[in-house]
């Protein structure tokens, strides 16, 4: 994303002009834009005009519209999960993968009138890449939103990884960028068990078919020619990854695809994972081969921090807390060492709720603790979301029950004081 202009005063009022460039920028915008914001972007609107004789005429007008956001919708057209159990036929077409697959739709009433559109008329803006968009926040830009803008505009952040998580007969193709994991394709080829009565040739035939399907899908879905692709990860339990790698190398050699065999030889990392499901990507990110290559990237760091949290939960339950109420109590006591928070919480439609989280983050940061913002488009973020979206590793052990009892006591005390005051007053 490019920052075209930023006019934000010290109180947070003002607007930001941004130019999104790829899928990930759409995700950033989705996280920045909230209900109630004023967004101005180019749009095409069908305008009907009635002439003096009463005949209607409609034409499309290209114009810029400012709308007050009432709904933001993000969709990344990854692979539909419904194909999971079906055989995807290896269609020979060499359809190039589209450059952007994510789409962002913002709808709401128009907030500034012009010649064609009346005030308050509804419109849905289709945000496109390379078209400038202006965002103005009604109740001001908070630190989290500004940090997000800054983060999204860092140039050259694209450390992309293409990963294939495969098992016997199944494979999921994933693209990992800083803030997103996209499952671009899944294949599933039925593999008969070797125990079947007519012998084992069926098994080998099916495996050969699986390798062929996987090769075709790989060529179409992993941008192996792109220089920004840092690594190609082949992850699987057992030895499927070896089989896949060898068959791909031979197939690429047979077809004379030099770029693919070069990319495979230079970039492939084979990682052992314990299951063939997409969620074992977390294991991929924890594996030493990947950590060594990508440790400065955001998604690797997220994986490491989440792992640390779970380990802490195992070792010392009193130093690993989760859930908004508990984390807030810990923050009040200045106990937080690392705060893990999901970006989903900041998308809360209720601005008051968002504010409380922003305050929490700011407070924790002021005390010198580390704050790790998880992207819910990554597997690690998904897992954090399942765990209420907020968690903390504490610097010293605190017992939840003791703290809760303290809170109750404090409240009692307060109530008693108030009662005493009212008594005094009366």
């Amino acid at each position, binding site marked *: 994303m490019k920052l075209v202009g930023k006019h934000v005063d010290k109180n947070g009022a003002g607007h930001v002009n941004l130019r999104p460039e790829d899928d990930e920028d759409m995700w950033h915008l989705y996280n920045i834009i909230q209900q109630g914001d004023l967004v101005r972007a180019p749009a095409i609107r069908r305008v009907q005009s009635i002439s003096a004789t009463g005949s209607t005429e409609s034409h499309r007008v290209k114009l810029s519209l400012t709308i007050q956001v009432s709904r933001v919708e993000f969709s990344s057209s990854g692979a539909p*999960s419904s194909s999971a159990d079906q055989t995807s036929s290896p269609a020979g077409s060499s359809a190039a993968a589209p450059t952007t697959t994510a789409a962002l739709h913002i709808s709401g009433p128009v907030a500034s009138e012009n010649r064609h559109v009346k005030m308050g008329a509804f419109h849905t803006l289709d945000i496109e890449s390379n078209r400038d968009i202006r965002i103005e926040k009604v109740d001001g830009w908070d630190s989290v939103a500004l940090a997000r803008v800054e983060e999204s505009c860092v140039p050259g952040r694209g450390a992309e990884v293409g990963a294939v998580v495969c098992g016997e007969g199944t494979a999921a193709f994933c693209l990992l960028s800083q803030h997103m994991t996209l499952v671009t394709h899944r294949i599933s080829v*039925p593999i008969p068990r070797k125990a079947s009565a*007519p012998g084992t040739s*069926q098994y080998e035939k099916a495996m050969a078919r699986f390798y062929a399907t996987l090769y075709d899908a790989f060529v179409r879905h992993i941008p192996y020619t792109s220089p920004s692709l840092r690594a190609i990860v082949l992850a699987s339990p057992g030895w499927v990854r070896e089989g896949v790698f060898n068959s791909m190398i031979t197939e690429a050699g047979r077809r004379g695809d030099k770029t693919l065999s070069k990319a495979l030889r230079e970039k492939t990392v084979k990682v052992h994972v*314990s*299951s063939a499901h997409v969620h074992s990507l977390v294991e991929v990110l924890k594996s030493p081969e990947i950590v060594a290559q990508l440790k400065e990237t955001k998604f690797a760091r997220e994986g490491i921090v989440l792992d640390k949290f779970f*380990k802490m939960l195992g070792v010392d*339950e009193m130093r690993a807390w989760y859930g908004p109420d508990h984390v807030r109590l810990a923050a009040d006591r200045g106990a937080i060492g690392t705060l893990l928070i999901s970006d989903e919480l900041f998308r809360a439609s209720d601005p008051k709720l968002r504010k409380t989280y922003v305050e929490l983050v700011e407070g924790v940061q002021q005390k010198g603790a580390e704050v790790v913002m998880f992207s819910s488009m990554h597997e690690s973020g998904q897992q954090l979301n399942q765990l209420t979206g907020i968690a903390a590793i504490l610097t010293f052990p605190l017992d939840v029950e003791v703290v809760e009892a303290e809170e109750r006591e404090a409240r009692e005390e307060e109530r008693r004081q108030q009662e005493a005051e009212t008594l005094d007053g009366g």
Partner: protein
Amino acid sequence: MTGHVDAGKSTLMGRLLYELGRVDEKTRVANERGSSKAGKSSFSWAWELDGTIEERERGITMDIALQSLSTPRRQVTILDAPGHKDFIPNMISGAAQADCALLVVDAITGEFEAGFDRGGQTREHLLLVRSLGVSQVIVAVNKLDQVNWDQSRFEEICGLLRAFLVQSGFPSSKTSFIPVSAMLGVNLVNRTSADAAVLSKWYNGPTLVDLLDELEPPTREIASPFRLPISNVFKGQSSGTGVTGRICGGVVQVGERLRVLPGDESAVVRLIDVEEQSVPWAAAGTNATLYLTSIDPIHLSIGSVLCPPSDIVPLATVFTARIIVFDIQLPITTGASIELFHHSRDVPATISKLIATLDRASGVVTKKNPRVLTKGTSAEVEISLRAGTLSGPALSARPIPLEAFSVNKDMGRILVRRGGETISAGIVQNIIC
């Protein structure tokens, strides 16, 4: 048939089949020649079962092999399970079809310990088969010839295992121990060969076949509606698609129409094969192969369930279960992402709610809404299946066929794994949606 990797499961089974005349001399010679050519002559017996090229190259079993044999009183179907930890999903799929377990352990000093220590497959396999409802177990202490038929070694291993078996909930009356050597074929069917002379000095108990003969078949749910979870799909010789699996309830006849779940398809049973013999009907407890017609094989996948159209299996995406947490490092929290195993199917899922911890013995609620479940606890939890993608608004998860334990015992058992480790086992209580 279970045990740690390289304990000799496939070899034992290959030898047993040969001794009982199920493998002819010609195949044996071919296997022997082939394996010594590959420089792996010690695997010659296992080649009978490890049929695929990859299994033979690596010298390990990767998938379940199914063979049947007959002892004087019983028809026994043996499922040879892979011991390597990466293939536990396959092993679970096999163990879900078993009534009894034959545990093979390696007697060689250091090898037994490697398999039995924390992280070894001996423990995990035993816990798995127990959670899948198996209570009878025969322990075959293998490779005793390598330690000169040392009786004290045999006793030592038995002592260690006996304690663990009792602790895992196997009744001691239903467990038996037996010294064998699979490679030399000692004490499988008889002890007449010259190699057995040393063993015969201190051991005069039953042979392996005698023990297999004495196994008690458990009671079957014949009266309940027909259920068959598919563990394998393959193309039949002439027409139709072959599916195999163990019947978990009810009876099936040739000519019957069966519904395939999940999905909207149904098929007609053309043939039923049990132990390679065509039969007119089959009942709960048998490992049967059904040949189905009037269905596209694309609708039959491993893990689907066959049932009568009048009495279909409920489909579930969210359900409550009563689980026992195994010996784990990291505790289970709400939202933990897990893999759920149910017969031959494994699906990604999350533990969406920790409802209560229970007293292990009495089942009384000890604590409501616990924060975490640590090792050894028994608990009631809510499990929801996960949708396939991470991206965008969550697509709804694909339901799996499941039944409460109270309705059908075999259909109500689940296993939970995380990060390549089995973390708990349980039974389905209620299907929520």
